[in-house]
């Protein structure tokens, strides 16, 4: 029994939320549907932990879907690289589901809650599928599943604020363009190599150096993924979508959605294609590197001038994604590892910050802007405490998870002879202190306009406390994150680099 379970884990981790989403939509009872959602995300999280253990033993698990042997059939690959996003998605999915149980009914009509949970599970399933699959076209399918589910989720925000419809429409159109570009790229590659399996692709593209169709296909694929990963300047859908989605949805999307696409980007750059190839070197140093640096600053500066807190955090995400792509762009083993460390830590940080802001807006029953934060810190000490810790983590202060990311990122860029990059990274992170400080100052130092009495709800702050604790824990004992990221980087760019 356990053998069968272990053997089928790679597909079970996807199927568990996918199947449950079909069941949940049929259940009108709010309590039951949220319980089922909770259960299935929890099981998916357990599965991902089991997978992690398996990967430690076997290093790579290949699963042939329907027993059609790859490269003909669809292959699911779990290795030391893909296990990182799987753990992130299932962990955050699980935590946000706990969190959503109280927040969701506040923003969504009773009749639509089970539909929302169904979409919720669908989005999670899509994201997990995206990172487990080893097939370039199957990847597109999952990309669309997760995107369309997220678009619908964002649109659900319209019950509170009609702007959500515009945001969702933007997201839909831009996302569809991205997906189309990606699939055109896949089509071109399929045309010249005759395969869709990524491992197989990587063997066949070696012989096709300087093939024009290959270069075009690669370009389409990369741009398509960059849209999904919200890499500057293809990020324009992101701030609005995060800002107007129902609160719990923004937490989920901010922490997981772009992470999966970033993983795909790394996979295509380093695993399908070869880092030693001129095409990749040029892409990294002339496209991704400059765009990342611009993103770092543009995102931060936009955040400094933003008044709406959810949108502020979304702008900050754009900058943080810049750090991750910058790490990939440097292209050494150490820097790719640093990128993965930050993928993990940023999911924790941004998830926590969005959770904190969502809790605040739940308590005060208003959109959270800088001006109505005044003096709330005293009224909700637990939420405020978590918010401060996670802000410090975002700024990269020592003893938090964010510091570990910064440390490895800086070290990687200095050892790749990029002292100036290191200084730029630190300069932008010093700038990020400005917007964080503005929020903390408003929460703590300013006097509230009128006396506010708020009773913090344990159903809301439990998951916030857990994720804040993780932020500190992974700052004090980072070996799990660091070791698995270094192993992932070794697998992607080779041991010697």
């Amino acid at each position, binding site marked *: 029994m356990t053998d069968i379970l272990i053997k089928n884990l790679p597909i079970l981790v996807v199927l568990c939320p996918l199947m449950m989403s079909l069941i949940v939509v049929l259940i009108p009872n709010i309590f039951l549907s949220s319980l089922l959602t909770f259960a299935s995300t929890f099981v998916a999280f357990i599965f991902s932990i089991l997978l992690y253990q398996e990967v430690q033993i076997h290093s790579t698990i290949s699963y042939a879907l329907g027993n059609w042997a790859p490269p003909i059939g669809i292959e699911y690959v779990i290795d030391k690289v893909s296990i990182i996003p799987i753990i992130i998605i299932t962990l955050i999915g699980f935590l946000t589901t706990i969190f959503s149980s109280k927040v969701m009914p506040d923003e969504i009509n009773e009749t639509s809650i089970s539909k929302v949970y169904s979409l919720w599970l669908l989005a999670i399933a899509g994201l997990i599928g995206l990172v487990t699959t080893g097939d370039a076209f199957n990847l597109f399918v999952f990309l669309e599943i997760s995107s369309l589910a997220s678009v619908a989720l964002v649109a659900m925000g319209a019950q509170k604020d009609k702007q959500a419809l515009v945001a969702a429409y933007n997201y839909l159109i831009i996302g569809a363009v991205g997906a189309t570009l990606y699939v055109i790229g896949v089509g071109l590659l399929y045309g010249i190599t005759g395969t869709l399996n990524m491992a197989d692709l990587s063997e066949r593209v070696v012989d096709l150096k300087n093939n024009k169709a290959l270069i075009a296909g690669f370009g389409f694929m990369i741009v398509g993924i960059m849209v999904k990963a919200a890499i500057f300047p293809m990020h324009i859908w992101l701030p609005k979508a995060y800002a107007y989605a129902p609160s719990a949805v923004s937490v989920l999307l901010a922490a997981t959605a772009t992470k999966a696409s970033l993983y795909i980007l790394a996979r295509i750059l380093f695993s399908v294609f070869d880092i030693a190839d001129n095409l990749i070197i040029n892409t990294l140093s002339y496209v991704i590197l400059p765009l990342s640096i611009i993103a770092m600053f543009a995102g931060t500066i936009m955040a400094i001038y933003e008044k709406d807190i959810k949108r502020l955090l979304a702008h900050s995400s754009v900058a943080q994604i810049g750090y991750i792509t910058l790490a990939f762009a440097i292209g050494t083993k150490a820097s790719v590892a640093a990128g993965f460390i930050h993928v993990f830590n940023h999911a924790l940080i941004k998830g926590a910050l969005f959770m904190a802001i969502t809790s605040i807006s739940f308590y005060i029953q208003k959109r959270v802007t800088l001006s109505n934060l005044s003096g709330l810190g005293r009224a909700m000490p637990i939420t405020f405490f978590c918010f401060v810790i996670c802000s410090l983590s975002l700024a*990269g*202060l*020592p*003893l938090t998870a964010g510091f*570990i990311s*910064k*440390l490895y990122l*800086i*070290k990687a860029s*200095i*050892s790749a002879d990029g*002292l100036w990059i*290191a*200084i730029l990274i*630190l*300069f932008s*992170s*010093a700038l990020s*202190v400005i917007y964080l*400080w503005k929020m903390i*100052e408003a929460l703590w*130092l300013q006097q509230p306009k009128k006396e506010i009495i708020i009773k913090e709800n344990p159903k809301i702050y439990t998951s916030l406390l857990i994720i804040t604790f993780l932020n500190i824990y992974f*700052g*004090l*004992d*980072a*070996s799990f994150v*660091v*070791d698995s990221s270094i192993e992932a980087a070794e697998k992607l760019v080779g041991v010697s680099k």
Partner: protein
Amino acid sequence: MISFENLILITLLSPLLVCLLTPLLSSRTILRDILGPLGGIISSWGAIQLMASILNGEQPRLELLQIAEGISISFVVTPLGAIFGLVASVLWIFAAIYSVGYMRGNKEKNQTRFYIFYAMAVHAALCIAYAGDLLTLFIFYEVLTFSTYPLVTHKQNEMAQKAGRLYMSILVGTSVILLLPAIIWVWVVTGSLEMSQNGVLDGRMNPEYAPYLLAMFVFGIGKAALMPIHKWLPAAMVAPTPVSALLHAVAVVKAGVFTMLLILTNVFGIDFLSKTGASNWLVWLASFTLLTTSIIAIYKDDIKARLAYSTISQLSYITLGGALASSMATQGATLHIITHAAGKITLFFVAGAIYVGAKMSKISELNGHGKSMPLIFLAFFVGSLSIIGVPPMGGSWSKFFLMLGAAESGYITVIAVFCISTILNAYYLMEIPARAFFFKKEREVKIKIPILITIPTLITCFLTILLFFFIEPFENLTSIMVNKL
């Protein structure tokens, strides 16, 4: 016999314990106020034991936590650290007593919060003193900045908020943008975050890059207040005086110059510096800061502002001593950490006493008040003599060594700089007791100075004299530091 690990823990944790216990006792003010001095006594006892062990040729160390491979939090007691640790913990006893007198005498709000962060800052300073590697040093350097922010903005008014912003942006900004990459640069070059007594860079780093790395360190360590990043120190003077006294004359700024000296001696190494001349530019920058801020101090009428600029100037003595890259100058710089701390804390105590007792903060208001507060102004006089470097005060030793060091490394101009600055010191410091004792009184003021303020002031004043006669153990420590013993 207590093991060295426990001894380090006792010294470091007693301020942290004070910080944690204070909020529990917030309603019992007497117990709460005793905690600080008590913690100071325990902590200084530990610091003295650690110093004794260094004199016996041992090297206490403690591995606390391994964060990831190659990154850990560890503590090692070096001669330099032993000295800084002793200064911070001993002076904390008196500053803690003094702050009780000050906070009560001034009827300040939020006293519990004040004591919490006060103890926290001392804890951070001690952790810096015993930091065993560069990362631990950096971490507690930041903790110190953050724990002093609520103290600087204690009054929570517009001015305090503005000063707090300047304080944070300079200290955090410089440390994050320059100090952190400099540390990581050393990590990349040497492959570890460890330091060693003779430096770690010799033979591993291209000497051509050394001045740039040094510049990143020098401007990254904002707490050492070299020009042009000195502005935060005068801004921080909005804080209550006990904060200015312990933190901005001792713990914070000394943490800055301590870090600077540690980097110069234990990362670069004196030999490496003198061989490559990487620190030559720093000699001139420090000399410039030293003279310029002395001149600015003359024009400041606010007592605390004048003392702040005087502090910046005295900090440059220490940086200059390290930059001269000779063993004698390094010894002088290290001794100056002690002697200046004792002298300057006395001067700040006096400034606070005058503010609490007579509500005066301007020098021009002091005319003729010497007779009504004779002990206080006497303490100021003695403290000033020590800062100026007149025997029989402790300050004379450090200046003596610094001048010898300048001669040893062949910087004759620097000796002249020291002489000119001594004259300037005398000019701007002596004005205060001179006005108090010899000028005519302009108006009558009711004076009431709490006894808890007078006593610590007199004790630290007495310490400056004691240091003249009992400098030997400290000198031995500095000799161990530069490998003379």
